[in-house]
């Protein structure tokens, strides 16, 4: 019996593809965000409100679901390039699926790529898509203890959007407890309260996005400044 040290990631192949994507995004000064939540937390409605308001930002959206083009149809109304990734049963997006769907887009012309992951709090957290950061959504119709029950994604997300806050008067949800739980799992996590229905918190989310986009400015604009 001979023990061979291997030392590589189980998802090595995905990791390599994700690093290639990350390099491409960096070359083009493109900021990529990976939106993750349970089904029904409000990812698609938030994106509709986001696209409505980001009129001057060149962006594109990849949206993942097990079946149907419904989300892509909803999001295409805003005139931005949108593609549906139908996973056909797979519970998460991986780097290969992303790469395949970017083929006919000119990344040099984009400042922002939004990836709407498959509704699932578990599996998407294991797959690096080459994104700059993960953003997790938790809605007020879920439990405050979701961050404790699904710590992996809350530990990896830079920002938590507490969605559907317009429903707070009607649901037995304690937002302070939810925020405390998220910070217990990830002390540095940023949190924005938001309602896609009333528009509360949307400005904060949009300026968060704009700040992140600007921090990854285009190589050409860097040259221009020099």
């Amino acid at each position, binding site marked *: *019996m*001979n*023990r*061979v*040290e*291997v*030392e*590589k*990631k*189980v*998802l*090595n*192949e*995905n990791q390599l593809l994700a690093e290639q994507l990350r390099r491409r995004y960096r070359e083009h000064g493109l900021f990529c965000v990976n939106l993750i939540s349970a089904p029904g937390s409000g990812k698609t409605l938030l994106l509709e409100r986001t696209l409505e308001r980001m009129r001057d930002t060149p962006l594109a959206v990849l949206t993942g679901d097990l079946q149907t083009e419904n989300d892509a149809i909803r999001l295409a109304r805003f005139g931005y390039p949108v593609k549906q990734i139908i996973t056909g049963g*797979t*519970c*998460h997006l991986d780097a290969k699926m992303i790469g395949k769907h970017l083929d006919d887009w000119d990344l040099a012309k984009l400042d922002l790529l939004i990836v709407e992951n498959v509704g*699932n709090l*578990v*599996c998407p*957290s*294991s797959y690096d898509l080459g994104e700059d950061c993960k953003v997790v959504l938790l809605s007020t119709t879920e439990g405050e203890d979701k961050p*404790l029950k699904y*710590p*992996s*994604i809350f*530990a*990896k997300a830079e920002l938590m959007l507490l969605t559907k806050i317009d429903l707070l008067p009607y649901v037995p949800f304690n937002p302070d407890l939810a925020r405390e*739980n998220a*910070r*217990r*799992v*990830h*002390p*540095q996590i940023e949190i924005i309260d938001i309602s896609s229905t009333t528009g509360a918190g949307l400005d904060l989310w949009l300026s968060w996005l704009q700040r992140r986009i600007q921090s990854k400015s285009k190589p050409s604009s860097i040259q221009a400044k020099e």
Partner: protein
Amino acid sequence: MHELGIAASILDCVRTEAERHPGSHIGTVGIRLGEISGVDADALRFGFECLVKDTDLEPLALDIEAVPRVQRCSQCGNEFRMTEYDPRCPACGEFMTQCVSGDQLDIAYMEVDE
């Protein structure tokens, strides 16, 4: 629920390693599984056994080393095992500690029968 895919990725690595040792058999693959990797060890074992059964990879054992979550204190540098979702540094009480270990999903070793 993605453990079957993870098991398939482990077996891909086993096959790649097996090609480097022609004429021998890999008896064990050892992985490190972090506490917050998002992968369930029992589901992974189940998926692994299903995929190995009745293939040329048999007999192949899966050795899972569970890796606990470790936080580092931003104030005093203390590293400690995080339990009960309490990120506070036991040495100085600082809340803003950072996760430095626990998301591993790595292949550590394989045992090759020459």
